[in-house]
């Protein structure tokens, strides 16, 4: 057995534990991540004031220079300064992350709410449709939509990513709406002539918002990853529009010349951002393991 030869099963190791020990304020929120993300956002959106080097300027005399005094993070194979590209690119990447999330959340909430209040038959039809859309591999879907919408711009790609990422939110919203659609306050509101929009905004949204909050934050992450993956593969943003993804699109050349800085530096910024977003998202989930383990 264990190190003790006699043990009372079920006795708590800590006798009296206050149900919710008061936590320090800095433990309630992911301070470090928020700080990091905040700095990143400020830097990126004010990069014009801070960075004076034009990120698209191709300094052909200094192609593929390793990080050093003059070029802090080196230059890429086209002779662009990576340090300045990081901030300008971050602006585009973050913007796409937020815009795409806004689009996917809007579609997901609308679709879910409509499906939730619809008659069972219509609801079943709508949910089947969602399942079918889900069954198309995401990448293929994006490639197809990208081709339909044509030109790859910042807004265009946000729309494409937004359109392909709303399904899971719609499912949750629908379930939540179905649960509360027959509550007294909703019926009362309906009787007093509240429109669908009014009920959605004033009654449904406050109810399901906590449960989709986490997914919304995670969608920011998915969108940033999707943008960088697409741009890397050459079907997202073109090389001229600098983003963390399109910076990595040159990595095939970088692999050949062994210039690690072109791959590692944008990637690290990307990952740090993603980790901050994930951390913030995780803190939004309620912690279900308050009780002590029985094991």
């Amino acid at each position, binding site marked *: 057995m264990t190190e003790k030869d006699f043990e009372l099963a*079920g006795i708590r190791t800590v006798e009296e534990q206050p149900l919710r020990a008061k936590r320090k304020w800095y433990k309630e929120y992911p301070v470090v991540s928020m700080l990091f993300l905040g700095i990143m956002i400020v830097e990126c959106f004010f990069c014009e004031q801070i960075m004076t080097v034009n990120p698209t300027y191709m300094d052909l005399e200094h192609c593929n220079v390793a990080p050093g005094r003059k070029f802090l993070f080196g230059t890429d194979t086209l002779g662009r300064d990576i340090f300045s590209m990081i901030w300008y690119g971050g602006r585009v990447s973050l913007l796409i992350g937020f815009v795409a999330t806004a689009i996917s959340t809007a579609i997901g909430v609308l679709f879910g709410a409509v499906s939730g209040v619809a008659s069972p038959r219509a609801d079943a039809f709508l949910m089947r449709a969602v399942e079918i859309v889900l069954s198309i591999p995401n990448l293929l879907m994006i*490639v*197809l939509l990208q081709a339909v919408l044509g030109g790859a711009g910042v807004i265009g790609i946000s729309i494409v990513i937004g359109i392909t990422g709303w399904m899971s939110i719609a499912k949750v919203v629908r379930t939540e709406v179905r649960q509360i659609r027959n509550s007294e306050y909703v019926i009362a509101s309906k009787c007093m002539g509240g429109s669908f929009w009014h009920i959605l905004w004033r009654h449904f949204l406050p109810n399901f918002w906590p449960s989709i909050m986490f997914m919304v934050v995670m969608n920011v*992450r998915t969108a940033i990853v999707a943008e960088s*993956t697409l741009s890397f593969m050459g079907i997202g943003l073109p090389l001229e529009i600098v983003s963390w993804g399109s910076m990595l699109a040159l990595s095939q050349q970088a692999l050949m010349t062994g210039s690690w800085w072109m791959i590692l530096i944008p990637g690290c910024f990307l990952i740090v951002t993603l980790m901050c977003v994930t951390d913030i998202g995780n803190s939004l989930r309620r912690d279900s393991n308050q009780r002590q383990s*029985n094991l």
Partner: protein
Amino acid sequence: MMHRRAELLIYCIKKILSFVISIVFLSLVVFYISRWAPGDPLVSYYGDRVEKMSPEEREWAEERLGLNDPVYVQYIRWAQNALHGSFGISYKYKTDVTEVIGGRIGNTLLLGGIGFLLIFLLAPVVGILCVWYENKLPDKMISRVGTISSCIPEFWFSLVLILVFSVIFKILPGSGAYDIGKSNDVLSRIRHLILPLAVVVISHIWYYAYMVRNKLLEEVRADYVLLAKAKGLSRSRILLGHCLRNVMPSYISIMAISIPHILGGTYIVETVFSYPGIGTLAYESARYKDYNLLMLVCILSGVVVIFCNIIGQAINERIDPRIKAEKTGEALEVEVL
């Protein structure tokens, strides 16, 4: 008894019907989207010659490939042929589509299959380790590393592995599925599989391990654990024999649903490693408007996805009759997220 059997029959018929409807709908959607997309399918068939073609020649070429009919006529024709088992020829490879895919699907299944198996076996191990040392150093370390690993985009991870292992140290090959002319050499194939496999496994595993961990953490707080402990069972017996057993059913059904997720993850990895599989094919065919190829790739992926979904649902209903047929899908979906 008869009643039971009839019920089962109806259940199966319902499932099959919804399967067929889904596939038809999927094919329609993909067909229409791909035809609406701008771009010239003739380029993939004739290459650069298209630009020098006269209008008459163009028309003749389109007529020959059946591209100038209205879309629904084309769809009906495609569906008729597909039902007879012929999916048309690939514009780019100029051979039967099934042949093109047949030559590649083995590679994807090898990568995706082994990857899936490794994830399936390793995720519970990682999860159990975390629960065993709950809130102690190993659990915290694993959780940290896991979160980081799930944040790394697959393509970037692949790039870094290529950079480290094949550019800097030159120990492992960074592209292809085998050395030139050695397609039957098992050793060469294994050497080419290591890096892509590592990416597939590492970028997915935490997702599932985390799920197992959370489920187990809930499970060890149940009252029967106390009882088992009072009976004098050892920690490992309780965790592995009782808790894990209770978690397994939902784990298996979720893994069934995530087969396509993991297979889909190989698409990106394949393109970075230029590994000749379905992923590179799907990407190529969508970009170069190789319609017939695109359709078959989409249908195949769709079949796998829908089939796995149904299997997952069925497993769940079997194991836990409390879950009604309609509720399963969404409950699982939320969980997987």
